[in-house]
């Protein structure tokens, strides 16, 4: 009979050889990361006193606060329009300034740079430092130097963005084909000429994408800069919360949420358009030269008119946004003396036990929230990804919910929880947990959908159950991106947890704000150094883990 087939042939060898796979670094790293995540989460829960009872009490307090905020009280339409315009202009001005500074910085920091080594290293230090310190930390400092208002906010946005734009641009520069540059050098071109005429055109699409991405982030950030007095709609939120006018605060939060969601829709639309344009626009370059045009004349066609028009419009918007910051010379000269006072006051950095404990608290809040957020985000991602969702309509609902939750800035959650639960890391942890969950769910769902569907299909065809096919056909493929994205969330959470302290939600942010208010810049410097070290350490750990888990 057919069913005896497996016994028909004798075993090929009496001794089958090793049946246990050799130990690999991968297994150790995976087990280590998992153990570390569990231990850190437990430690965080213990530190902030999280228990089912305290969580239930906290959520009860939050619900009561939300009830007190109802109904929202919107400011007048004119006020809303003015605050929104100021918020947008801060983001545009900051991003524009950052781009201007990033291009030379990126070329200097790229591995392909041919100048002196120390110059490249210096550029890299600038990139790492500006990236590690959050926008809001810069905003506090700049409010001190330039005074209250949108100028400080725009500069803070600019300085922090420089780090990210320059890093991503430097990566693009390093990846660009080196042969055209060699050819230009062989013609006797100077290094600056080589960069402008061979490398810049090649990285231009990447630069556009990076700038749009950063502008998107900056628009969200500029909505909360006002909390530290750096202009935009956040000023009104801080005023309302400070005067315990919860109805007004709710109204402003609604405006912020709607603004952020509209921006999200806009950025999705732009991304879709640029993608469609890139695939359809390939033929424009091959069009024959129109008759009657002088051979040395590029001439005008629709594409060129759109490009030039877009560039001019972007430039005009940028100039308007700069002008709106009101950088009059009298203020700037006053800023100079403030700046030199800040810089000289920073040396030598003053470390203290209290400071290190606060940094540790920020770190614990961040890692605990990232681990808990990754766990919850994984569940939500499995519900939303098209290849794992048990039920399509549920997937759509969760997806919309996640966009809304992600749209609200962390600082708004933190302000709410602080108002409901009082000062301390508990409020900060809850705020971070929510945002980490939403962020992780999005990253995980996106990467789940990019996995190869064939192993799952093959196992289903072999009679495996649903969970078996998932565990064997999808999960092993997903492990690297799960770990990579999880660590990335931890990285973002660390930066954010510093910021939340500014709202009094635990961690080192409060200390930082206080040190600047009391002119103890040496403490500020120590905090900035400590944060940069921690963020750089997490990034390095993430890079190593990703390399070994691939």
């Amino acid at each position, binding site marked *: 009979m057919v069913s005896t087939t497996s016994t028909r*042939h004798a075993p*090929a060898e009496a001794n089958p050889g090793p049946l246990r*796979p050799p130990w690999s670094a991968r297994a150790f790293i995976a087990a280590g990361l998992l153990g570390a995540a569990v231990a850190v989460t437990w430690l965080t829960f213990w530190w902030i006193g999280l228990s089912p009872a305290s969580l239930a009490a906290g959520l009860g307090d939050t619900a009561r606060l939300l009830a007190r905020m109802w109904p929202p009280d919107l400011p007048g339409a004119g006020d809303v329009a003015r605050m929104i315009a100021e918020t947008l202009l801060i983001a545009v001005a900051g991003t524009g300034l950052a781009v201007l500074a990033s291009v030379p910085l990126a070329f200097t920091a790229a591995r392909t740079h041919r100048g002196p080594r120390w110059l490249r290293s210096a550029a890299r230090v600038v990139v790492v430092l500006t990236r590690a310190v959050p926008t809001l930390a810069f905003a506090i400092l700049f409010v001190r130097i330039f005074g209250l208002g949108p100028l400080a906010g725009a500069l803070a946005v600019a300085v922090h963005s420089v780090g990210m734009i320059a890093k991503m641009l430097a990566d693009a520069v390093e990846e660009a084909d080196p042969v055209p540059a060699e050819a230009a050098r062989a013609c006797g071109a100077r290094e600056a000429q080589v960069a402008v005429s061979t490398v810049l055109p090649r990285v231009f699409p990447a630069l556009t994408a990076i700038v749009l991405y950063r502008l998107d982030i900056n628009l969200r950030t500029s909505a909360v800069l006002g909390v530290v007095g750096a202009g935009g709609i956040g000023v009104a939120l801080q005023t309302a919360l400070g005067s315990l006018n919860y109805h007004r605060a709710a109204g402003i939060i609604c405006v912020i949420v709607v603004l952020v969601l509209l921006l999200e829709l806009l950025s999705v639309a732009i991304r879709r358009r640029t993608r469609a344009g890139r695939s359809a626009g390939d033929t424009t370059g091959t069009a024959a030269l129109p008759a009657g045009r002088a051979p040395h004349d590029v001439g005008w066609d629709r594409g060129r008119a759109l490009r030039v028009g877009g560039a001019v419009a972007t430039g005009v918007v940028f100039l308007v946004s700069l002008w709106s910051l009101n950088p009059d010379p009298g203020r700037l000269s006053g800023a100079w003396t403030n700046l030199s006072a800040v810089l000289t006051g920073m040396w030598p950095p003053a470390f203290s036990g209290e400071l290190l404990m606060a940094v540790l608290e920020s770190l614990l809040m961040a890692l605990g929230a990232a681990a808990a957020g990754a766990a919850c985000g994984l569940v939500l991602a499995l519900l939303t990804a098209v290849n794992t969702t048990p039920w399509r309509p549920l997937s759509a609902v969760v997806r919309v919910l996640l966009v809304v939750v992600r749209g609200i800035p962390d600082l708004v959650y933190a302000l709410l929880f602080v108002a409901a639960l009082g000062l301390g890391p508990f409020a900060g942890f809850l705020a971070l947990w929510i945002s980490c969950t939403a962020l992780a769910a999005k990253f995980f769902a996106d990467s789940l959908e990019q996995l190869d569907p064939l192993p799952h299909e093959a196992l289903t*065809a*072999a009679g495996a*159950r649903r969970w*078996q096919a998932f565990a*064997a056909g999808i999960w*092993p*493929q997903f492990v690297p991106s799960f770990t990579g994205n999880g660590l990335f969330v931890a990285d973002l959470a660390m930066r954010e947890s510093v910021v939340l302290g500014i709202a009094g939600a635990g961690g080192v942010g409060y200390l930082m704000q206080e040190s600047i208010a009391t002119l103890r810049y040496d403490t500020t410097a120590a905090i900035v150094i400590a944060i940069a070290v921690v963020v750089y350490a997490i990034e390095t750990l993430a890079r190593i883990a990703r390399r070994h888990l691939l």
Partner: protein
Amino acid sequence: MIGAPVLRLSEVGKGFHGTTVLDDVSLDVPQGQFVALVGPSGAGKSTLLRLVNGMYVPDRGTVRTLGENPAACSRSRLRALRARVGFVFQQFGLVGRLSALENVLMGSLATLRLPRYGVMSYPRALRVRAVEHLDRVGLADQRFQRCDTLSGGQQQRVAVARTLLQSPELILADEPVASLDPAASVLVLEILKRISAEDGISVVCSLHQIEFALATADRVVALRGGRLVLDEPAAGLTADRLRAIYDAAGARDG
């Protein structure tokens, strides 16, 4: 050798969104036979194979696989049926990050209740058998190598070993050698042929290369535009007659 056919299609029709992909196809496959399924692209070969293990449901006619009707099975019966039918894909369907041995072990999931992750989560007896099957396809020494570091031909042999661990009574292979070079193709087809002969397993294998079909199969079945246009023992066939099926399709489409 005499008995109920392993596979019986009676007047099967299948379409998608109003188009007809398979039209009135009838076919019996007895135990131990190696059937090559040929025909131009879009003729319906993959669709036919997917009807056999219940991945698609026919619009008309009936499919009987190992005495069961996959379209009428409950979920658990369908799983049990699929466990007895091996399926080999053109793109292998292996998890590249995992070892060859772990990929082979996945073939036994239908006999286990719980999800598994990692070689050591499978019982020792299964690991021994998995290594035997890897040895049959000539890859016992590569058992702990990651699949994405194996060549295409080696990966397809791992996929065959995974199918063997199911102890299948029927193997369906959908263009198993379409992404392999000629030497690797010959090796994979020879392994399938040997398994079919030694274990008495029926194989239905769709192929694009006429030469391979004639050299490997006991019987050649040709589809064109969803209809069965030829069904003969491979021994009496010439390459020219088979080529005419492809040419006719090309002439009609052009």
